[in-house]
């Protein structure tokens, strides 16, 4: 049985003797072949880690990147798996074992004949905190803390919000020489619901004092992610007015969408992009936009409208005519609008990092907190 869409390939395919577990990332399928019983999530999670590692090493996880670096791919897989059991999946350890390729290094290597494989054997693998390398050095000591809030929402036809969820992830960019203990103390930890932690966080202290203390890994990492409990819902920062209709027995339809900001505490809504999956019957679209540019791909039937910044004085809108295939029946459903946006320096849930303390060091490192509110899976039904 053939799946029509790449998205619809089932992750687990049984064959007479083996089971195929696959993931689809960046237009590549990663497939693993299984003989015996194993928790499928175990395999899926591992495959995603492999893809993450490739991304980390080669900058992108594409077919060409893998083909160009086939030797490194082999070496990586060799280190990550031993007889089907994951061995070293932490990118810090891997990077110590096998250095990621850079242009400079490949030039140096071809001249001097040295290799990408680290000469030193990693010690991190032996430790209980595998996420941190030994002897990390930075020129300046600083730690940035990004709080990224994503709003997931489904808005129904009449503009009523039927589902809303704020999902927050805190990303830390540490640049500190030695292991520190940071205690970002949230002002109102009661808001947090269902937290998931990076393994470096000491769970006990969180339980007792609602304080996060940890030794940070080096490099970017997601420290915690959590949901804001559903009782404290806030206003959604944008609204969308839409009029999409297809006329019966004619090969055209009308399309009219306006996006506007709601009260945002004086912050501007930026990076607004709207994508719409139009029905199959749509041939092409003749639209005019008051702001930004739009593109319509007649093959995939995806309309993308890059709006940019929204100013409340002049609301951006996109109007025009939709051409349908002649003779095709009128599409029954209006397409849903997927919207992305970004608001800098605003945490929409009202959450605040109260204090960021560092212990274990004599000198004062530089530290900063940044808030961003983004649209997550934000969909408007029409």
């Amino acid at each position, binding site marked *: 049985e053939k799946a029509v869409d790449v998205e619809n390939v089932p992750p687990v395919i049984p064959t007479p003797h083996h089971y195929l577990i696959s993931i689809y990332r960046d237009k590549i399928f990663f497939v693993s072949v299984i003989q015996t019983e194993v*928790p499928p999530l175990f395999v899926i*999670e591992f495959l995603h880690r492999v893809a993450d590692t490739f991304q980390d090493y080669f900058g992108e996880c594409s077919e060409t990147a893998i083909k160009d670096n086939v030797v490194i791919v082999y*070496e990586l897989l060799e280190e990550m798996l031993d007889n089907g059991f994951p061995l070293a999946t932490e990118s810090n350890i891997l990077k110590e074992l096998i250095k990621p390729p850079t242009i400079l290094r490949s030039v140096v290597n071809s001249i001097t004949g040295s290799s990408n494989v680290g000469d030193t054997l990693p010690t991190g693998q032996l430790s209980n905190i595998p996420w941190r390398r030994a002897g990390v050095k930075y020129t300046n000591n600083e730690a940035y803390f990004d709080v990224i809030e994503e709003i997931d929402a489904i808005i129904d036809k009449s503009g009523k919000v039927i589902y809303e969820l704020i999902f927050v992830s805190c990303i830390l960019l540490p640049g500190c020489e030695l292991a520190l203990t940071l205690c970002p103390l949230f002002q109102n930890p009661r808001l947090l619901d269902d937290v998931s932690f990076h393994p470096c966080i000491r769970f006990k202290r969180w339980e007792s004092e609602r304080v996060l203390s940890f030794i940070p890994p080096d490099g970017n990492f997601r420290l915690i992610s959590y949901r804001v409990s559903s009782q404290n819902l806030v206003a959604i920062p944008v609204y969308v007015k839409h009029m999409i209709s297809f006329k019966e027995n004619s090969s055209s339809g009308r399309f009219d969408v306006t996006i506007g900001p709601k009260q945002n505490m004086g912050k501007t809504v930026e990076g607004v992009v709207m994508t719409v999956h139009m029905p199959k019957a749509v041939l092409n679209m003749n639209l005019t936009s008051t702001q930004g540019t739009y593109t319509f791909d007649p093959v995939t039937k995806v309309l993308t409208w890059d709006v940019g910044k929204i100013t409340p004085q002049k609301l951006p809108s996109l109007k025009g005519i939709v051409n349908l295939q002649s003779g095709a029946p009128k599409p029954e459903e209006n397409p849903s609008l997927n919207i992305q946006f970004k608001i800098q320096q605003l945490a929409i849930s009202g959450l605040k990092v109260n204090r960021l303390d560092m212990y274990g060091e004599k000198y004062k490192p530089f530290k900063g907190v940044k808030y961003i509110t983004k649209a997550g899976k934000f969909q408007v039904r029409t």
Partner: protein
Amino acid sequence: MIARGKNASDLFPAVVKNVACKNIEVKKLVYVYLVRYAEEQQDLALLSISTFQRGLKDPNQLIRASALRVLSSIRVPIIVPIMMLAIKEAASDMSPYVRKTAAHAIPKLYSLDSDQKDQLIEVIEKLLADKTTLVAGSVVMAFEEVCPERIDLIHKNYRKLCNLLIDVEEWGQVVIINMLTRYARTQFLSPNQNAEAASLAKRKPYVMDPDHRLLLRNTKPLLQSRNAAVVMAVAQLYFHLAPKAEVGVIAKALVRLLRSHSEVQYVVLQNVATMSIKRRGMFEPYLKSFYIRSTDPTQIKILKLEVLTNLANETNISTILREFQTYIRSMDKDFVAATIQAIGRCATNIGKVRDTCLNGLVQLLSNRDELVVAESVVVIKKLLQMQPAQHSEIIKHMAKLTDNIQVPMARASILWLIGEYCEHVPKIAPDVLRKMAKSFTNEEDIVKLQVINLAAKLYLTNSKQSKLLTQYVLNLAKYDQNYDIRDRARFIRQLIVPTEKSGALNKYAKKLFLAQKPAPILESSFKDRDHFQLGSLSHLLNAKAVGYQELPDWPDEAPDPSVRNVEVPEWTKCTSREKRKEKVEKPFYSDSEGESGPTESADSGEGLGSTVGCQAEVPRVDEGHERGMLAWSTAGHRAVPTGLWPARALLTACVSPCPPVTPPPPQPVPTSNIVSTSLVTDLEGLTLTDTSLAPALLSPALGALRSYELLHRMTGEGLSVEYCFSRRPFPHDAHMVAVQMQICNNTDAEVKSLRISAPKPLSGTRIHEFPEIESLAPGDTASVVMGIDFCDSTQAANFQLCTHTRHFYVSIQPPVGELMAPVFMSENEFKKEQGE
């Protein structure tokens, strides 16, 4: 070339030569190549083995580990004994990393040669007793692969595994949790026995085993893991093991996973679907998280729909139905069909909304899409069967549809409906039959069968109008190409058309055809899946996968919980003042769940370096190490790690000379002029006073001697050897420790010329053999004394025990306590020694 799938085996000798190459990158690639092709070119692969054997002896632990890793990956049956030896050696290696690699190597060897199972189980047993987090995950993996049925091996390690769990690396966590789920199912009573059954049986009220509670408590924090597999593993553990009231905690974590990659969503939703049938209340608060986005892949949509349907109840049905209305207009037709099915299921389950649903579905009948109409017809048919009387209008409407609908399943459904309820629509039914008779030859088989059915039913109820038509249809069917249809026609003709020959059955034809039929029950396809362990591959496929371990039922009677008690060596029971003091300082450490020792010591800023180092070099004494050591031995464990206690006692003894601690003999000292019960013997092996004093005093301690097993009767082929440290001076050499051996011959034959041979002394270890025993009759026991100079290290002494037929490799590892001899001296003497 391997990457392109080409066969590169011709180059084998050329490549293998490079194995000794200095360049690490080349070396690694040769390893990859070797592992891939060694099985085909066995003889040539042997050339490389000596390199690995050398690697196994390397002082660097990482090189030892990687050598073992590659060696065990080479699938050449000839080297099985070499592998076995290497694994055994690595299993008692100082470095936990090498031990971990040894654990990895076990399943590899097992798959190569399953005859080694017994020996491998021994190694597994040894490694299971390991106390490092690094090893735990890997050895449990090996356990699952080699001997999942030997649940008895877990008993002693159960509590340790529970406590270490949070510090084990994430992949190991998954394996351990799955294993513990099975273990708990066999060892504990079900927490969900209903009260009635309990009172009937007059059992005492259910009290949860503390170990069961321990498992639940220690796994809970893992729900917050970033690894989806760990979260799922904990979720299934709670679902299978926790009391009903506590299962709810997993819902939140599972819903969180729904934000992850679509493959993860797929697996999680499958499991949620199963759970939501049994424990509906659990997911109700998260109903909205299962709402469907138009951009979800179809398979995710259908699974979400399944969950929504399972969650529907009388309070939320109106919201759900409103949501379904949106879905019906979707462009994705498969999804629309699934939605209609879902509406049907909601309608059957919740009587209140049946009419609303039915009306909604009837409206769908005018939909332009044929698939949608067909699906609605099928669902309506099922719904109507529940209460046909009030809905003759709908049946009439559907009868009209026969002109338009082409989907066979839908046509068949309509015909069946009309036939079944022809009494409600007496005028239309014959007309429909007439139409169908006309087009009979062009219909699909399934429709034809229903036409025959309809004809038969009409013949019985309304024979005046339909007699001829029925005859006509039956005649057509008689010459049909499909034998099923021919068969059916013949059967029905005999049944309904009265002839002289037809027997008694004829009278009952009406009863046969127009019997009351029970309404169908629309059920979830996930209904019976929960007999598979959730989160497993078998559950996902709803079929048993190879190697699936059945989740056992709860036992009726709890097995003896005392098997999990770890026996504490006797001498630790004599709590010294020192120890008590520490217990006050760190109260209930053994109960700490969240953070155990290693994290603690890591936090103290030293990292694990000191901890690992300490583990590797037990006998060394210095302040920094002691700190790590304390953290180690308190690693959240009730049962005190046996191997560490002597070292600990040793440290206390050496560091604090004032309150002397006696490791071995707990007896009070009879004489009063001696200040200390026994004095610290220096590690360096300096005997401070003459040893002649010792024997007399030591003799009372003999009662407490503990004997160890040197050779089990199974491995020794009937010969069993036990040994104990007799704590007497060895007459031939004062530096040697006397080891008393009890050799027992359990075979039927005489064992001849029993002796020790070819000792392989480890740096400085010396062995004084016992005189050769010429023969040992069956059933006889002989006792001999041998001397070993361990050089004051805890390194095991390895030697061979030989009989006239066999050689057995054995080893004796001394506890530190046995390496000391008590010494008597006056207070002044002690101070003098202390001053030195």
